[in-house]
């Protein structure tokens, strides 16, 4: 028997979304990769502590997305994307990191840009420099 999922938080990365769920049985919080089908958040998620199963519903996930991420207009969206991209492309070029971030002559920083962009975007969307919430 599954209970409706109690979604406490949502985070994004380059693969998709991760949800933090709170078990309605024992109160344990745990994070899982969100499963979707045809774009709808679905699936069952077992609590790692008591194995009670929670059932994801698309509408509950959308409510959680609305809570976790403020709506932004197109201009703000572009500014956020620009800022996150700039950081992803810049941080690894610091002279102090040049030798550390290389292997057999290959610079290892530039290949990380796409994956880290999503992370910096999340940090900025949640009020860069502030409480991650």
């Amino acid at each position, binding site marked *: 028997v599954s209970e409706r999922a109690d979604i406490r938080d949502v985070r994004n990365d380059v693969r998709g979304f991760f949800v933090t769920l709170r078990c309605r049985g024992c109160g344990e919080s745990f994070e899982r990769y969100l499963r979707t089908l045809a774009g709808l958040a679905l699936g069952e998620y077992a609590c790692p502590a008591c194995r009670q199963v929670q059932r994801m519903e698309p509408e509950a996930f959308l409510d959680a997305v609305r809570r976790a991420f403020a709506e932004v207009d197109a201009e703000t969206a572009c500014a956020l994307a620009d800022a996150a991209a700039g950081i992803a492309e810049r941080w690894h070029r610091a002279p102090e990191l040049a030798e550390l971030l290389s292997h057999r002559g290959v610079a290892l920083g530039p290949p990380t840009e796409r994956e880290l962009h999503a*992370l910096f975007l*999340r940090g900025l969307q949640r009020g860069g420099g502030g409480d991650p919430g």
Partner: protein
Amino acid sequence: LSRPAVLFFDVGDAGFVPLVDRVARAGLLPVVQHASLAHALAAAGVEHRAWDDFVPAERDAALASEYLRFLDGLADAFARPEVVGAFDSRLGNPLPAVKEPFFSLLLVLLLRQVAAIDQLDRLAEQLDLRLLVLGSDNSHVQRALVGRARALGIPSLQLAHGIYPMPFARKAGEMDRLYADHVAVFGKRARDILLELGNDPDRVQLTGSPLWDALYEEAARMPRDRACRELGLDPARPVVLLCATYTDGSCVEFRRKALRHVGLHHAMARAIAAHPERPQLVVRPHPNEIKRADLSQDDVAELVRAYAHWCALRDQPVAALSLDDRIAAIRAADAVVVESSSTVIAEALILERPVVLLRAFDPPVYGEADGVVVCELDELPAALARALGDASDGKLARRRARALPELNHQNDGRATERVAALIERLAQTGAQPSAPPAAPAAPRDALRTAVSELLRGV
């Protein structure tokens, strides 16, 4: 070191077997990294070597040593204000909010690159490696391999897996910026976008899509009645195929995208109800949606049950779910509704089916030349009715004649031959790798304005 070798990395679709077979017949030795392609090649009797044969003997110890080097080095470097200051932006510094995931993700990204570079070196020591062929070139491992291959004087070729759209907002390291030395693109439309973004024309090769060749074969012209029966549908009633998509979290528009999936399902239900013949609705999820989640068969079955349950509770008229039967699903359909800019648009046109295009969040790659365009979900009933009429009044034939030659080069089902010839040329002539990629082109202001207007309506 006798036969020149070609490494196929992240090329996994079994539809590439004819391509690898041609490469092998041309006297090159294919080395294959992706297990599903290796399995298909073995079944087809195509000689190849496995990428896993070249794992260095001391890999784990080497990685452990690098892990410690990164850990110590990062701890030292991030104690310096100038390193942390590189994360400043006019919207703030995101590092405090994402410090833990940043370092844990960074270490994983670095170690995966080190492992791949060492393995490539091992391969290059043992074989006469002439070319690196990639299924895409935007992941950290793919890019590390391109960088190391370039240093070794080995060129690289990316097989495009779609028509890369003009970006709505800047994404670091996105596909619109070529990383591999060459890319084999589907058609003129894809090439024009890459050139408009400032990529070097000599690196963008027009070939067509090898994975679409099978759609031109007689076997793919499955009669509609048979396709309907395979999906358990009534051939006497109209069929609408909805090709859905999913949302990843890498772009700034993900919030809007995530919210639209449910809305689209409800809009489809209204469109079906509004049509006098009540078409049967088939939903086809994006194939990568399940692949990227790395689910077991039981997990997929559970997800399908959950989807059916949700549809039943919300009066969603889904008659069938299409997971593996792409050609049957398209050939059964009288109209194909596509949720985003997707290769399935060209696939439907090749298979002679009209398309309804739901405007994507990125600037459009596809438009009125390809199908009926929908900007707002409440336009869907009228658009569906129009698309269902397209086949009968000759519009579809005109669209196909106009759109397909620029979507799939030559529109002849012979892209495999052209890609194989390109691979042979690059591998046999000792083509020199290109210079590292230049800075990305900035999106055009006019484009941004147009997209801003589009987003207001969503």
